[in-house]
């Protein structure tokens, strides 16, 4: 039923829901063929990622040689962990959400987004040092767990509650993500098992595709389980952001009482996740050899998401800021001074421009949303902005003296009479060489893990592509050509 909609040569990127071949067999052959041999660009990516990762490990070792008791120097590490959580681990939502909403445009990019779940494994490693960096609840800080040594009941709360629950939640998120990836890859792994070139990939594909033969029971199960796992991943993502942002961020800042911020942390992650996927799409298009598959339709779809989420960024930020700014309680003033308008003001302004102002004024134009370069530039901006946002929050937070010390007041940052921060916080904390090495290493590690998994699992979802060919019909409607889209469920 599906038909080829290209007549004549196209010069620009293609529009519309487009599949470059007219039979399912051709699509399978093309995509399996493209995936059979690693390209030079893949090798260069892996090499670059590996070098950066080694650099990062050296940086980490240098950092570790100073121990974990001085939390000020670990701010940049915490920030990188949060950055990966905010970007890579949120990226799969670009596959999950449109799949639940039955948006056909997602099909060529859903795998590219889901592959980011594998990077969750890497972030799980990054999470381990965080357990040492975060002090137990005995320092008298406010927390989600309401530990209070004076109270007969609340003194029974385990003092490592944040560590325990955040670990469990992270594990659940990462496991759900990898399971989702495995599940959605199963039919494609079966294709590699049946059609791929011999070698380790085929052996792994055989093992991982289990007994997938594509019975209708298997397909039903697949759709059903993917729906459940996708919803579960989303809920865990929100929950992990909630726990991490409260326990590893808000609770450490005296006087920061901001019920909205945990949700803001998650909303920012959705925005950065979309930006991550856009950059992945560009890489797959330009260097991965999938130009024919990833078309303007996909860029248009994700651009709309990025635009909406950028507006949401402002709304969440302003909702918090307005209330704290109006409240002007001493604690609130201290928090605003530390995180927003104090030493990190230039960083905050950059974040504001990159995550909100620039996307608003650029992405409001439909021709830009419906292009490749527009969303790409904006995504780079959003990712840099998110990086800086995590920097301003985590680095500023971990540079507060007295974290973990029960003798320091945990209820407010005391400003002096002219409204200035305490001396120790008056200057922004700049990165040192190991911090820069670690930041590069984390980014390199993410790229490396992604590329390795993309070697095993095709970065274009083959079966969803085939499914699209069933539900998409081009036909003549009286004097015009229309696209008929089926809505199976």
């Amino acid at each position, binding site marked *: *039923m599906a038909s080829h909609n290209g007549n004549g040569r196209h010069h620009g990127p293609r529009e519309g829901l487009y599949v470059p071949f007219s039979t399912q067999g051709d699509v399978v052959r093309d995509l399996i063929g493209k995936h059979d041999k690693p390209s030079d660009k893949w090798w260069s990516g892996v090499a670059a990622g590996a070098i950066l990762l080694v650099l990062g490990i050296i940086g980490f070792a240098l950092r570790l040689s100073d121990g974990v008791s001085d939390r000020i120097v670990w701010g940049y590490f915490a920030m990188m962990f949060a950055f990966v959580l905010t970007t890579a681990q949120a990226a799969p939502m670009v596959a999950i959400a449109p799949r639940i909403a039955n948006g056909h445009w997602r099909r060529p990019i859903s795998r590219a987004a889901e592959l980011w779940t594998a990077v969750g494994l890497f972030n799980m490693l990054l999470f381990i040092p965080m357990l040492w960096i975060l002090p137990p609840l005995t320092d008298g800080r406010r927390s*989600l767990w309401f530990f209070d040594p004076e109270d007969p009941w609340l003194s029974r709360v385990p003092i490592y509650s944040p560590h325990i629950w955040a670990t469990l939640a992270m594990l659940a998120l990462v496991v759900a993500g990898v399971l989702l990836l495995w599940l959605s890859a199963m039919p494609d792994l079966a294709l590699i098992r049946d059609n791929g070139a011999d070698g380790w990939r085929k052996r792994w594909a055989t093992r991982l595709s289990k007994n997938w033969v594509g019975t209708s029971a298997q397909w039903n199960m697949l759709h059903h389980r993917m729906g459940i796992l996708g919803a579960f991943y989303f809920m865990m993502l929100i929950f992990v952001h909630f726990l991490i942002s409260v326990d590893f961020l808000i609770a450490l800042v005296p006087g920061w009482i*901001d019920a*909205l911020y945990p949700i803001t942390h998650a909303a920012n992650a959705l925005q950065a996740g979309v930006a991550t996927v856009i950059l992945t799409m560009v890489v797959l298009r330009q260097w991965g050899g999938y130009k024919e598959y990833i078309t303007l339709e996909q860029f248009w779809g994700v651009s709309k998401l990025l635009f909406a989420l950028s507006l949401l960024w402002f709304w969440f930020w302003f*909702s918090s800021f307005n*209330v704290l700014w109006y409240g002007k309680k001493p604690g609130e003033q201290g928090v605003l001074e530390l995180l927003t308008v104090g030493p990190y003001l230039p960083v905050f302004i950059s974040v504001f421009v990159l995550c909100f102002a620039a996307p608003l004024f650029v992405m409001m134009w439909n021709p830009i949303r419906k292009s490749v370069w527009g969303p790409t530039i904006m995504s780079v901006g959003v990712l840099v902005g998110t990086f800086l946002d995590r920097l301003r929050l985590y680095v500023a937070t971990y540079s507060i003296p007295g974290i973990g010390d029960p003798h320091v007041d945990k209820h407010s940052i005391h400003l002096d009479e002219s409204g200035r921060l305490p001396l120790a916080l008056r200057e922004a904390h700049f990165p040192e060489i190991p911090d820069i090495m670690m930041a590069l290493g984390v980014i390199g590690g993410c790229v490396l893990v992604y590329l390795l998994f993309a070697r095993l699992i095709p970065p274009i979802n083959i079966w969803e592509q085939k499914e699209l060919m069933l539900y998409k019909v081009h036909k003549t409607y009286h004097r015009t050509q229309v*696209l*008929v*889209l*089926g809505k199976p469920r």
Partner: protein
Amino acid sequence: MQEHIQLTQKEVNRDLLEGVLGLPKWWLGATSFLVLVILIGLAAYAYEVNKGIGVAGLGRPVLWGAYITNFVFWIGISHAGIMISAILRLTQAEWRRPVTRAAEVMTIFSLIAALSNIMFHVGRPWRLFWVYPYDFSRGIFMNVRSPFVWDPSAVMTYLIGSSLFVFVALIPDLAVVRDRATGKYAPRIYSILCLGWRGTPRQWRLQAIAGILLSALVLPVFVSVHSIVSWDFAIAIGVEGWHSTIFAPYFIIGAIHSGVSAVAMIMALVVWLWKMDNYLRPDHFDAIGRLLIIVATTWFFFFFVEWIFALYTLEPPEIKLRELQVFENPYWWLFLIFLLTSFFIPVPMWLFKNVRRSPMLMFLTTVLVNIGMWLERFLIIIPGLARRTPLTFDWGSYHPSIIEILIVAETFAFVALGMLIFAKFFPLIPLFDVKEGMVFRDTIKIGRRIVPASIRETP
């Protein structure tokens, strides 16, 4: 699979204009009853204006009572219109088609009802004069730094925007009524209202763009309106439990919860009163039921986070306030009813397909939600004020007086009457949207299975 019914345009006109061109038997009775309730409410209001706001149950420290609760409630309901029509238009959800207009019209009337609550509340309504900037002759201006100035600016923007939205989408249907109306004046009035619509491709094209463009423009306004209403409470530090950053999104999601529920109620009423079961199928109720599960769960998450952070500080005043809300008479049972009706009864029920597909059960559950959401606002406002400590010299409790109850009842009757009168003069289900849905509906045959499909214009 294909449970929608394909009809000719003539049949669609006949069905959907029945209530406009004819007069349903129950209509006069229903409107008379509502007018009576409104008259009683207005009489109560006249009494209040004459005697002063003291006739309401308000007193120190609870100076905001049923009127403000009702104001927030109706602002919340008003969010459904745009929520349903804008978001579903932008996501091209097919099931929106018969629902959009009723939702938008409800927006307009509930906004007016909300604004009227402010009139009732201030006691001296002529003082509203000071809200707007007029000219230099009186020498003083309103204080832009007060949320009570943001509020009218946002609500008026929303009211004007959504009224224009309704009007633009009404133009093609007005042309249909113009062509069908009989009598001396009706055809003339409709032909003026529809601005000489003919149905050229250009007009249809712009109508399609208008839906999307106006949705995109009204959507951000909708978000701002309830945020600003929440800041009426949240930016002040005087009342524990109000000063929370989460208030804006929490109010929005609560508004969507009650608003979408109200749309489901209206859908059921349209099915029963105007016998529109050919147009509002169990499928439509199913779709809105699914949407409600998501909305209600999100709302509950925000509710949970709001509570967690209220307790997070472990400060005695905040804990005391929450104790008052949950354990003390009469709030404990109101709180229990609120939790049960807004979440724990309806959401588990919506998980069942049979419930979602039944107009009766959807009607009942969504009525419950709206009872719960009215109480939610009540429980935010009244216990909060009752516990207000700084600068409070005497304490009284709060009971709505009979005057307040009559006036609150008046707002409900007002919105219902508005909808009924609108439905008498204009079609409540958009004719052209339904017809378009029928033209664009298609199927794809894959083997033995026929998959419902729709035509997309971009080839």
